[in-house]
């Protein structure tokens, strides 16, 4: 499969007063054409910053973002414009991402006019109606002249999706796009986004804190787990959820409450050595998870940053202990 988006050693630091915070610290990630990659992690893990850099909203302080093989910050203005059109964003909060003074029709017409997709106002309105139909807001005439405040949260988020679709993107970065919606509405939105993969060949970088949502949306895709600015594990969804390898992924999965009383009350928990999440201003040396990690090896984990290592099954893990175990298992295999 062809890589659509590639992140190479991506870094982003922010200056806060006199100290520097590394929100993203050497992220490598590849999203293939038509693929879904979910980035999951807790607040402050750098998932949103990574997403913003992927879509060119934020300039990296190190590394590269390549879109179809080209570094987006080395593109000519014409190339960059094309890239920004091909890559669209769905934000978390449908209450604040739509202009409250414009009707839904105007909100959708603006990008259609700006990118010269619509020939005139009437054409823009017809295309806007078509887009509303695509996102299941029917009949469109019920919505075109309404203002965002007249719609429910779920309907607003559909308008956000319709707006992203105005410019015929091939890549959508969705940042917690369903987190603010009620459960019954969440599913229909996720299913609609999934449908676009089949209908339009859409590629997704889907950012969420909710692993169950990631599992549902990216079942045939991959999940990348981030911790304090680094990817600690990445692999095919069923495998990452079913047989997590990194101790942090294991801890997360064992901690998540589920809507299944027997399963959730009897789940075996991974005990961490510390409950405190280190501050980004003071990231622990070596593996940043080492102060909390049950597998901690002194002299190794607190000294050397573990690299993402291929451990088979298309899974990569950044953990000294797991990588060593894998190497040992491989070494003990009888050759031939």
């Amino acid at each position, binding site marked *: 499969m062809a890589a659509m988006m590639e992140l190479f050693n991506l870094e982003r630091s922010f200056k806060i007063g006199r100290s520097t915070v590394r929100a993203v610290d050497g992220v490598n990630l590849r999203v293939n054409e038509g693929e879904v990659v979910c980035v999951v992690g807790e607040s402050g893990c750098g998932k949103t910053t990574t997403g913003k850099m992927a879509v060119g909203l934020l300039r990296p302080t190190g590394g590269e973002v390549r879109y179809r093989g080209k570094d987006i910050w080395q593109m000519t203005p014409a190339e960059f414009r094309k890239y920004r059109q091909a890559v669209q964003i769905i934000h978390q909060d449908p209450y604040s991402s739509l202009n409250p003074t414009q009707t839904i029709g105007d909100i959708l017409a603006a990008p259609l006019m700006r990118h010269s997709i619509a020939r005139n106002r009437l054409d823009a309105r017809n295309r806007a109606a078509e887009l509303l139909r695509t996102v299941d807001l029917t009949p469109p005439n019920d919505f075109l002249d309404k203002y965002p405040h007249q719609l429910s949260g779920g309907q607003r988020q559909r308008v956000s999706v319709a707006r992203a679709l105005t410019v015929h993107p091939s890549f959508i970065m969705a940042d917690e796009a369903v987190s603010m919606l009620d459960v*019954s509405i969440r*599913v229909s939105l996720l299913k609609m986004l999934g449908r676009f993969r089949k209908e339009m060949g859409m590629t997704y970088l889907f950012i969420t*804190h909710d692993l169950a949502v990631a599992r549902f949306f990216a079942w045939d895709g991959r999940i990348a787990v981030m911790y304090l600015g680094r990817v600690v594990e990445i692999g095919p969804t069923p495998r990452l959820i079913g047989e997590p390898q990194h101790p942090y992924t294991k801890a997360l999965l064992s901690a998540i409450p589920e*809507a299944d009383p027997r*399963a*959730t009350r009897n789940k075996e928990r991974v005990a961490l050595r510390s409950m405190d999440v280190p501050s980004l201003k003071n990231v622990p040396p070596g593996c940043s998870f080492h102060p909390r990690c049950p597998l901690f090896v002194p002299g190794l984990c607190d000294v050397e940053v573990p690299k993402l290592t291929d451990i088979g099954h298309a899974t990569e893990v950044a953990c000294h202990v797991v990588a060593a175990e894998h190497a040992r298992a491989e070494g003990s295999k009888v050759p031939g």
Partner: protein
Amino acid sequence: MQTPVLANSRSSLAGGSASGAAQEPTLKVDDLWVNYKTQRGAVQAVRGVSFEVGLGETLAFIGESGCGKTTLGLALIRLLPKTAVIPRGKAIYSRNGLATDLLKMDQGALREFRWKECAMIFQGAQNAFNPILRIRDQVLDTAQAHGESNPNRVRERVLELFRLVSLDPERVLNAYPHELSGGMRQRVLLALGLLLDPQLIILDEPTTALDILTVRSVIEVLRDLRKQIDFSLILISHDLSLAAELADRVGTMYAGMLVEVANVMDTYYHPYHPYTIGLIRAVPTLSGEHRDLISIPGSPPDLITPPKGCAFNPRCPYATDECREQQPPLLNVGVDHQVACWNWQTVVADQGSRLIMGARAQA
């Protein structure tokens, strides 16, 4: 030790009676209605809710935004905004054989009731500490405001409670709120809620906006507390997984009404109401098969003019003419299981056959 406020202020409590029955539920709510006055008319946020919570029991209210669950909590501690009116209903609170209707309490009795009898922890309250006061001073303020003036006694109780919620008392008492993590502040709040030994705690979305590992620690702390201290807990949450972790019984709310009340196992494994079934089917899970999720079509009704009959009928696949005409009552349909649905038997039969078909397909 605890000073039962009801005994102290008996004279101020209308309807107080010493029945002496030890098994009285802590709270018995009967046909409670809450309306909000708006320019468009009265929004009927809570419409005839009845339930009981026993001592040591955890009752969770689940439902989506606008179903009335937070309004219900606010009504119980009498903190509704001025635009709200309670046209009807009773909420009988009992402790040590003394019962009182908390909807009839005057301001003086309410002052006694809040915190000493009932504490409510609001959504996002972990961010509402005064940023310029140490935790110690905020704890003392609370105790003093509610009549506990002996700082040594307060201190002793706080030390004990902080240990119960796994906080290092010395460190936390001297800290300013910004020095504590969100989960630690939530645990301080839990301890603070228990400070005056209330018998009823209402938690509104206690884990929203907290990280996964923090949510886990709050859940474990709550579970430990339940084992060590006897109190009734009302848990209000849109998060079905939180109720699955902590509840003994679950009340499903829709359009201001309780549509199903059942023990936690029945709610998740044998729900009878089409809305409860819909909710549970719509939640993605981590364990188990990768199954298809089904969303509930349509959206919740406008509560100024709720639909005739069952409020869920416009979205319900089982709706019949009866559902469109008449509101179904909350009926006892099993052990600790109540449902408000005219067609619950059809629903149960249909769900049962679906489960069997699913099992066959797998075999």
